[in-house]
């Protein structure tokens, strides 16, 4: 059994003291950290929470969340993907919204969970309800919280890399740019091929390392040619891939930042 109450009970059993949310008027936003943020860049998660809170959301973080199941799903391991999807649905369905600092993970939940439960009417309904309230972070800030200008400070020339799932599954294109452009110190430059895949592709990046690295290399060239000091993006997978390739190319200067860090003022 999963779900908020189970999580809270579990945490209490472990001795943690946590707040319980009983608010009925404020929108309760379930924050899906994503496994990569959890493991590699926790600061991105905290920056995202800061943005959600300053936008007026009541943020709830299911404490036992792990992964949306996409690695299993895209590797053809359907049964594990279904089990993980079930876990996520249970953890977040009581929230008013599910928000993730990732186009890829939110896209998995919003656009692929339905297919996993085809034929299971109960789950299909539950998934459809969750999918309808699932958002990528910047989309949620702009279209639900109606944030006009982020509170954080950042100064410098940046370029934005559109992640594939963010762009083509979640429709994230203008949202991050609008928020970034509203920051007084930010100079937003568009690089060539900003919508082209960086080559990450999950396990693809390890199975076909040479192809993946070539795609990343192309992206690095476009970033460098743009004249930006930092490439800003909304997905950890792209972030690790582009940063890893930039450094291997010997570029120690160009920064690779998650959009949440920039908007929250955690990147200056």
């Amino acid at each position, binding site marked *: 059994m999963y779900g908020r109450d189970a999580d809270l009970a*579990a*945490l209490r059993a472990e001795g*943690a003291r*946590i*707040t319980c949310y009983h608010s009925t008027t404020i929108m309760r936003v379930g924050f899906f*950290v994503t496994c990569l*943020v*959890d*493991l*590699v*860049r*926790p*600061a991105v998660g*905290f920056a995202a929470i800061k943005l959600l809170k300053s936008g007026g959301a009541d943020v709830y*973080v299911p*404490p*036992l*969340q*792990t*992964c949306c199941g996409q*690695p299993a*799903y*895209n*590797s*053809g391991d*359907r049964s*594990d993907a279904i*089990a*993980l999807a079930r*876990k996520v649905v249970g953890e977040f369905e009581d929230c008013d919204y599910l928000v993730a600092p990732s186009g890829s993970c939110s896209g998995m939940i919003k656009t692929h969970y339905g297919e996993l439960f085809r034929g299971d009417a109960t789950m299909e309904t539950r998934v459809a309800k969750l999918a309808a309230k699932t958002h990528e972070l910047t989309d949620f800030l702009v279209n639900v919280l109606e944030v006009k200008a982020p509170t954080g400070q950042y100064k410098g020339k940046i370029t934005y890399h559109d992640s*594939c*799932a963010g762009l*083509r*599954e979640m429709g994230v294109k203008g949202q991050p740019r609008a928020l970034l452009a509203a920051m007084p110190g930010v100079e937003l430059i568009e690089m060539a091929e900003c*919508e*082209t*895949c960086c*080559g*990450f*592709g*999950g396990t*693809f*990046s*390890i*199975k*076909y*390392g*040479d192809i*993946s*690295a*070539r*795609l*990343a290399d*192309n992206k690095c060239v476009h970033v460098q040619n743009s004249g930006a000091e930092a490439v800003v993006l909304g997905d950890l997978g792209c972030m*690790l891939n582009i*940063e*890893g*390739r930039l*450094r*291997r190319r010997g570029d120690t200067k160009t920064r690779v930042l998650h959009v949440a860090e920039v908007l929250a003022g955690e990147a200056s």
Partner: protein
Amino acid sequence: MQIASMHFKARAHANLNDEQLQTNLKKFQGKFVPARRNALVELDDVEATREAARQIRQRALDELDTWLELFEENATASGATVLWAETPGDINRLVLEIAARHRVKKIIKSKSMVSEESALDHAIEAAGLTVVETDLGEYILQINNYEPPSHIIGPALHKSKEEVATLFSNTHKTPWKDEIQALCLEARSVLRQHYLSADMGITGGNFFVAETGSVVVVTNEGNATLTTTLPKVHVAISGIEKIVPTLEDVATLMRLLPRSATGQSISNYVDVLTGPKGAGEFHGAEHMYFILVDAGRTAVLGSEVREALRCIRCGACMNHCPVYQNVGGHSYGWVYPGPIGSILTPMYVGLENALDLPQASTFCNQCGVVCPVKIPLPDLQRKLREEEFARHLRPWHERAALRVWAWFALRPRLYGLASKISVRLLRLLARPNGMISRLPFAAGWTDERDMPAPAGRTFRELYRERASVRQS
């Protein structure tokens, strides 16, 4: 055609390091992608047109037997002969039987990818007949010792004009020149003699029209027009899935096909051919045959990837695929490269012979959004990945890693503990700049990239810590 799809990894690696090929691929990418974008602007409503095209193709597939029977009836009534090839071998057998019946010695061909599936040219030559490819790209490949095509509409676009110049000079014994117009004129003068002396013309078929029994052939060089009208026999070969119910359907599809393919509003030539030359008619072949090919198509129709049969062979998926753009069409090892090939090849030659193809995609879905008939290409590739996983066709270590990871991810407390330990260990591997330069179990990543090291503590532990601080 010889299957080399099992060598995808090695071929892709070699092609990534082939400087000439990389230069040629970049040039091609800079042409088709913007051309398509500009051409689609001419349509009032691209999305509605795509949806209409999807429906037309899907309707044809949903009632394929009905339309095929209607086609056979109408084509036969117009005087043509309809033949059915169940296997690639049947294509070659039928062509040679027709050639024998009409005492054919020389055959000219306009482009037919289906005939590549059965290596028809080799079968024709083995039977002692002459065959000449008339599509310029296919001709270039033929005189280069039957090099395989690397793209479905631009079979030789992996070649530079200098490479073609050398090939022409050596084959035609003419002075070396690399002006494109001069090269085209040279090909034209060579091919013209063959058009006039051939006894049989073979074409592919972009569409078979059920209501009229016609074949529609789309070209830019006019070679199909000559191939179908000058020799006394015309044979049109294509897959059974190429059927469309009506001519009006063709009109809708033609709004998207050339635009998606080469960025043209309309191709230079569109031939709609119905029956052989009738009494009192001046143009056309005296005998007309259709060879409708199954060769795995009905199996696809009954599978989870059936939507792939909607394909109208525009090539937009490969033109826009970042993997194809960088590894080139030859890496895929069979007739159809790129995203659509990564579905059709495993289905036609056996999944076990093409294990890499459904895997070699980042699932960026650039192909899916440009496909004129809305084939969900990544979703279909994922279906094949599921089959590979279910049939234990993946390496054991990949499967084991996945199962172990999923086992933990489904046990959140153990996962929390394991991830706490992992991120600390990985942190220890980091150089002062925060990068890991070698990871023993992920060499694929670290061979050409650094791995940014984890911060050292997980979000989950930090969040819990902060939550309890807030409470105390």
